[in-house]
C-alpha cells in the first residue's frame, strides 16, 4: 500500500505523536488539565487547527471564516442524532461531508481573490452563516437556545432496531457512551487519523504544489499551471477537517449553538495556528492546546485560589502578589493570552515550534562545541 508508506523519520514522528496523544490523561494531570472535557477539547481543536493549517500553512491563504464549517459540522451531527441514530458514525460522516459541500461553495467564490480580499470574503460568508443561524434559520438551528437532542426525536434507524433512549440521549459507538474518557479516545483517534492525512498531504506532490502557490503563485501560472483547482481542493479539505471537528464537538456533547460560527471562533483558530507555528505539522495542535488550556484553567483561577497558593508568604506580601497576578487570571485570561501572543509573534515569528527548534539548535551547538573543546584537550 503506497498510500500508507512513510519515511523512517515520519514513522517515528507518527509513533511519538500517537503515544503522546493517547497518554495525555496521564501527563496532563499534574498541570490540572487531565480531565475528559478538556482532553476532548484538546483533540477537537487540535484537529480543527491541523485542517486550518493545510490551507493557511501550505497555501498562505488566510481564511477568516473557518468557524462556519465548524458550525455546519456541529449542526449536521446534531441533526443526524435527531433524525438518524445516536450512533456517532453517521454523525461524523454527515458533518464532515456537508461541511465539505459548504466549503466547495464558499471556496469557489472566495478563491477568486487573494490576500486580504480572500480573508474578508471568507469572514463575510462566516458571519452570514452565523447571523442566519441566529435569526432566519431558527427552525433549523433553534437560534440562541441552541439545537439539542430530545428524547422524542424520530431517529429512524434507532427506531427500526427498537433502541430506547433515556431523557437525555447521548452519542454512542457500538453501545459505548461518547462521554468522558471514551469520548476523548474517539476524538483522539480522529485526531491521529487527521494528523496522518495531514502528514501525507505535506509530503505529497500535491502538498508541494500548494507550497509552490504560497511561494509564488504568479510564476506557477506562467509555467502553465492552473492553480485554482489545487487551492479549492486544499480549501475543501481544510473545511472538512473543521466539519469533522464540529461534529466531534456534537458527539461529545450533543448540542450545537450559533456562537460556534462567530468570527471570534474563526479568529481563535488563526491564533492557535500562529501561536504554534504556521506551516508546521505539530505547531497548530500545540497552539490549540495552549489556548484551550488558558481558556479553561486560567479563567477558573479566582482571588481566593491565589490567596491559597501564596498563603506561605506573609499577609502583606501575599496581598501585593495577588493584586499583581489577579488581573491576568480569572476573566482576565485574555490579557495573559494576548501578552503571550505578542511576545511570540515578535520574538518567535515561527511560533512555538520555531522556539523549540531554536533551543534544540543552541543545545546541539553547545554540545558540539564542548565536544570539540574536549577533543582538543584530550
Amino acid at each position, binding site marked *: 500500500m503506497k498510500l500508507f508508506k512513510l519515511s523512517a523519520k515520519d514513522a517515528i514522528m507518527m509513533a511519538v505523536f500517537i503515544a503522546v496523544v493517547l497518554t495525555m490523561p496521564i501527563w496532563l494531570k499534574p498541570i490540572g488539565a487531565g480531565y475528559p472535557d478538556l482532553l476532548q477539547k484538546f483533540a477537537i481543536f487540535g484537529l480543527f487547527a491541523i485542517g486550518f493549517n493545510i490551507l493557511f500553512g501550505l497555501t498562505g491563504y488566510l481564511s477568516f471564516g473557518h468557524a462556519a464549517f465548524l458550525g455546519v459540522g456541529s449542526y449536521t451531527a446534531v441533526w443526524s442524532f435527531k433524525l438518524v441514530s445516536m450512533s456517532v458514525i453517521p454523525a461524523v460522516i454527515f458533518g464532515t461531508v456537508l461541511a465539505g459541500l459548504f466549503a466547495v461553495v464558499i471556496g469557489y467564490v472566495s478563491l477568486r481573490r487573494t490576500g486580504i480580499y480572500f480573508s474578508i470574503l471568507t469572514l463575510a460568508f462566516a458571519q452570514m452563516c452565523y447571523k442566519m443561524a441566529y435569526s432566519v434559520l431558527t427552525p433549523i438551528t433553534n437560534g440562541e437556545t441552541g439545537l439539542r437532542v430530545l428524547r422524542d426525536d424520530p431517529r429512524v434507524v434507532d427506531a427500526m432496531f427498537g433502541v430506547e433512549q*433515556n431523557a437525555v440521549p447521548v452519542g454512542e459507538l457500538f453501545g459505548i457512551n461518547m462521554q468522558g474518557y471514551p469520548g476523548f479516545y474517539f476524538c483522539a483517534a480522529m485526531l491521529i487519523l487527521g494528523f496522518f492525512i495531514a502528514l501525507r498531504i505535506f509530503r505529497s506532490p500535491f502538498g508541494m504544489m500548494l507550497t509552490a502557490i504560497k511561494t509564488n503563485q504568479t510564476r506557477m501560472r506562467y509555467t502553465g499551471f492552473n492553480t485554482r483547482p489545487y487551492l479549492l481542493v486544499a480549501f475543501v479539505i481544510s473545511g472538512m477537517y473543521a466539519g469533522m471537528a464540529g461534529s466531534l464537538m456534537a458527539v461529545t456533547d450533543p448540542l450545537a*449553538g450559533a456562537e460556534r460560527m462567530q468570527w471570534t471562533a474563526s479568529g481563535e483558530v488563526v491564533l492557535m495556528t500562529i501561536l504554534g507555528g504556521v506551516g508546521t505539522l505539530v505547531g497548530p495542535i500545540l497552539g490549540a492546546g495552549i489556548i484551550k488550556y488558558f481558556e479553561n484553567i486560567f479563567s477558573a483561577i479566582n482571588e481566593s485560589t491565589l490567596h491559597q497558593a501564596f498563603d506561605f508568604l506573609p499577609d502583606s506580601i501575599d496581598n501585593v502578589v495577588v493584586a499583581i497576578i489577579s488581573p491576568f487570571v480569572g*476573566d482576565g485570561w485574555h490579557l495573559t493570552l494576548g501578552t503571550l501572543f505578542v511576545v511570540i509573534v515578535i520574538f518567535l515569528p515561527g511560533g512555538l515550534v520555531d522556539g523549540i527548534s531554536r533551543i534544540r539548535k543552541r543545545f546541539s551547538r553547545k554540545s558540539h562545541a564542548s565536544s570539540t573543546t574536549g577533543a582538543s584537550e584530550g
Partner: protein
Amino acid sequence: MSDLKFTRRGVLKSGAALGAAGVAPSFFVRNAWAQDFTNNPGNGSSVVLGFNVPQTGAYADEGADELRAYQLAVKHINGEGDGGMLNTMTPLSLKGNGVLGKKVEYVTGDTQTKSDAARASAKRMIEKDGAIMITGGSSSGVAVAVQSLCHEAGIIFMAGLTHSNDTTGKDKRKYGFRHFFNAYMSGAALGPVLEARYGKDRNAYHLTADYTWGWTQEESIKNTTEALGWKTTAAVRTPLGAGDFSQYITPVLNSGADVLILNHYGKDMINSLTQAVQFGLRDKQVNGKNFVIVVPLFSRLMAQGAGENIKGILGTTNWNWSLTDAGSQAFVKSFGAEYGFPPSQAAHTCYTQALLYANACETAGTFYPCEVINALEGFKFDGAGNGPTEYRAADHQCFKDVLVVEGNENPSSQFDLLQVVQVVPRAQVEYDPAIFGGELGTCS
C-alpha cells in the same frame, strides 16, 4: 522497504499498547467512583459547590451580584458572618457548621451567557474540581443547557436567574430546581395591573430577545394581554446582546401601536429602553392615548443602568430589597454589611438556592442526589423573603407571591429605584404543571 514497514507497524503497535496500558488505571478509578454517586465527598472534611455565573457579556452585572451572594451564602452556611437568612428561614436543619459537618468550599466559572461555554465550565467543575452541585446562571438558554448536562452527570443543578417557562416546563429535569419565578407568572401577575392602568383597548408591539426566555415571555404576556382585549400589532425578535436597537425601535413609531413591550433583560433592556425613550416614544400620543412602555421582567440592577428612563414603567420582579419581612431584611443587612450596597433579585434567588440545597442535604442526612431531591420536592418554607413558598414536586418550580413593581418617580437613594405596586398572591399565578409538557425523568 518491507522491513521498514514492519518496524513502523511495530512502533505503532507498541505505541498504542503503551498508551492503552498507561491509561488503564484512570479507567478503573473512574469506574470505582461510578458505583457510588458522582463526586461523593466521602469522608473528606469539605464539600465543593460550583458557582457558574456570567462574568462577561450582556448579563455580567447580574453574574457579579450572583457571585457575591454565593460567597455570602457559603460564609453563612459555614457559620461565619451574622448568619443572614439562616436566622429567619423555617423549617431549617442547617446548624451553621457547614453541611453535614463538612466545610463548604466553592469553585467559580464564567458562563459567558453562551450555552457552549457554560457547559464547558460546568463540566470542568464536575470532572476536575469534584463539585457536588452546580448553581447559577442568568440566562434561560444557559440554564436549560446546563440543567440537562447536570441531569446526565447525576449532579444537582440549582438554577440561578432564569425566567423562561421552559426551565421547569418542557425542559424540566429531575436534577434541576428553580427558585425564581417564570414568564407565565409575570403575565398572570401583570395582567390585572395593566388593565387597571391602561384599559382594555390597546395595541401592543413586542420586542423580544431571540432565545427560549424571550419566546416564552412573549407568549405568556401575549396570552395575558390578548385575554384583556389588547391587540398585538407585531412581535419582533432581536438578537441577544445586540447593543444597538434603533433599527428595531424606528418601525414602532409608525406601526400604530400604543404600547411597547420589551422582552429584554440585562444590558439589552437598558439599551433598548434608553433608546426607546430617546426616540421620544413616551412623549407620543397614539390613537388618543399616551404611549407606554412595559418591561415584564424588571430588576434593580437594570433600573440603575437605565437611570431616569425607568420612571413610571411597570414590570414584575421576584424580589426587591425594600421588602420589610424579616427574611429580606436579614439578607439585605448582611449583604449590605459585606459589600456596601443592597442585593439584586439575582443575588437573592442565588443566595436562597444555595441555602435550600445545603438545607436539603442536612435534612436528608446525605449528599446522595436522589435523597436530596426527595428532600427538596414538595419542600415548604418561609422566611426567605417571599413569604410562604413551596418547591412543587411535579415540576421543581417554586411557588410564591409575585411583585408587580414600577420605576420610582421620586427615589430617595440611588438604590431606591423600584416601588412595589402590588404583591400578587401565589394563588393568582399558580398553574397546572401539565400545560407546558416535558417530563422530569428519573433519578438514577
